[in-house]
């Protein structure tokens, strides 16, 4: 297994650290590489002197241990993972799985060292946002319910920040939308900036509404909910199977299933299902290959007008209009 160490931190000198570590070449803000270790692209974007962002899109050709070392204490990293397979996240000899069926949003203090173990052939797509603690504290102070917390949270002696979470559905939709933009687009930078701000905004909202809470240790119930959620997503073009059926599959009572599901995703199973259906409907319309009625048939809507009604209430525009104005 290969070991790669990133020691970044001061001044967000990510380009200079990442390129030699991975053996890629720097092109503007991109690092592109295709060697025996990996094939992929990194994109680094400094925002102002307190916020910086990094996009990692790499497929590893051999198993690797990635060590993250910063040695400074003044920023927090938010890592949004979009990964099909699981990777191991190791912190203080404790290993946690990160991936589609596990945690996919990590928030880690720069003070903490951590490692990833990535297997051969795994594609990692990670959006990282680095924010100075001083900046984050300012924003949190504006939010009344978090204000009392922020004093302790940002006291390095009392607390180091580490949180494992699942990103909200909105965040994952945002990232998926963003992935459609090719790296060579002249507007890549603009869209990336847009994405980062929206992700921060979304996360703060998530904190505000506090709908999503997962205890630090993920128990089996939570895991089976997440698995059932993934299954639900795979059959999103069908008919909603009903909570009773889903609960049975996950070996829980319907009421427990519904409660846990809502806690984890912030939406009830039905709402989650139907919102994802609409996301798919929008994507199908964007391809330009289908008419509205074909989309409605494909996704098992009872009739077009119902699809149109739901679509309009979610996106503020009717599907036909959406397609014609694309």
């Amino acid at each position, binding site marked *: 297994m290969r070991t790669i160490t990133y020691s970044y931190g001061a001044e967000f000198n990510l380009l200079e650290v990442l390129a030699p570590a991975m053996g890629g070449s720097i092109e503007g803000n991109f690092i592109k590489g295709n060697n025996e270790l990996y094939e992929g692209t990194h994109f680094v974007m400094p925002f102002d002197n307190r916020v910086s962002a990094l996009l990692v899109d790499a497929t590893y050709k051999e198993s690797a241990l990635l060590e993250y070392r910063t040695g400074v204490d003044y920023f927090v990293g938010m890592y949004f993972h979009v990964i099909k397979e699981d990777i191991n996240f190791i912190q203080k000899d404790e290993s946690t799985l990160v991936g589609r069926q596990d945690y996919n949003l990590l928030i880690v203090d720069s003070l903490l060292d951590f490692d990833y173990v990535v297997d051969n052939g795994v594609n990692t797509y990670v959006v990282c946002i680095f924010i100075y603690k001083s900046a984050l504290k300012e924003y949190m102070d504006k939010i009344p319910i978090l204000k009392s917390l922020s004093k302790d949270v940002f006291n390095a002696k009392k607390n180091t920040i580490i949180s494992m979470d699942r990103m909200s559905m909105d965040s994952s939709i945002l990232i998926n939308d963003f992935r459609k933009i090719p790296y060579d687009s002249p*507007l890549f930078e*603009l*869209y990336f900036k*847009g994405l980062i701000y*929206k992700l921060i*905004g979304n996360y703060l909202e998530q904190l505000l509404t506090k709908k999503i809470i997962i205890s630090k240790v993920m128990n089996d119930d939570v895991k089976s909910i997440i698995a059932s959620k993934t299954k639900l997503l795979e059959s999103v073009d069908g008919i909603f199977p009903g909570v009773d059926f889903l609960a049975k599959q996950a070996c829980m009572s319907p009421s427990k299933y519904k409660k846990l599901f809502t806690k984890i995703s912030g939406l009830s199973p039905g709402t989650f299902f139907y919102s994802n259906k609409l996301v798919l409907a929008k994507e199908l319309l964007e391809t330009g290959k289908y008419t509205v009625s074909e989309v409605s048939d494909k996704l098992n809507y009872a009739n077009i007008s119902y699809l149109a009604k739901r679509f309009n209430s979610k*996106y503020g525009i009717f599907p036909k209009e*959406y397609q014609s*104005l*694309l």
Partner: protein
Amino acid sequence: MSELIPEFKHIYSLTPEWRQDFINYLGGTIVDEKMYFSEKWSRGSSFFLEILPDVSVIIIDTIVNRPILLTRMASDDDFWIVYYDLSDSFSKHIVEDVNHKIGYKSKLNFGIVDNKIGSSYLATVGERFYSLRLLIRKSYIKTFFTDAEFEKDFKDVFDDKKKKMFFYGHIDSRSKVILHSLKQNKIDDPNYEFILKGAAFTLLGYLIERLNSKMPSMVAHLEKDIEAVMLSQQHLLSNLLVPFPGIELLANNANMSSTKYRTLYNTIFGVSPALYFKNEKLLLAKELLESGDFKFVSDVAYELGYNKTAYFSSIYKDYFGVLPNTVLKEF
């Protein structure tokens, strides 16, 4: 009508200074990026952010309490103003004395105007007015058009002596979705700054993509042609009570062939002259019905030059979703 309505003249700038004029005239307070209006004129607030050195964004979300004509004076700052309008009802946007109704239900809710052309805004009293504006320095837009082809199409637009950017149309789908979700957020939310920045960058991206793909043909017209079309359009609007005069006459008035007239009209207004005329007529019909001056639907139909009441009723219902008779009864 506009003589009686107080007029407030202002300018925009890429930096936040322009807001002071608003506060001086309309009252209210400025808190950081936010601006709260005083109850005297309107209830609501505004948000201003400089997202790039060359790009700023303004959100205005308010309910106007009494009619006011906002006139943006032409100024020498070299930028475009891009309007996105998601108001609940129509607002009148007046550029060089020609009315454009822009608003959620109308077709024209998107506009690009050069800062060097003045324009006025008349919002409807009592309804939610929601608008986002991007102010973009011209030199910045130029950086996205390096290809020889665009150089050819756009060169004149950036040369003030020849043409000025001026375009009305509809918001593209993707932007509308972004705006719709932005509209769900309140200006006072602590994370609003991020949400707005995210939306603004995305909108800017969509705008540039749109300029790249579709706009060149649109802006490659001579200003005098556009003026001629606008003039004939004004003529059309002032004669709403007679039947549609026909494209040939209009084209003749504007000194061009009917094909050219129709294409140009379509690119400027996004609809055909006949359809625009019909829609305006129906909007007028709504006003007439609500005015209480008419007892019967047939009177309104006759007033607007429709021979058959049934036909008038049916197109009215197609457009507004209610029969004119119902409207008449309500008032």
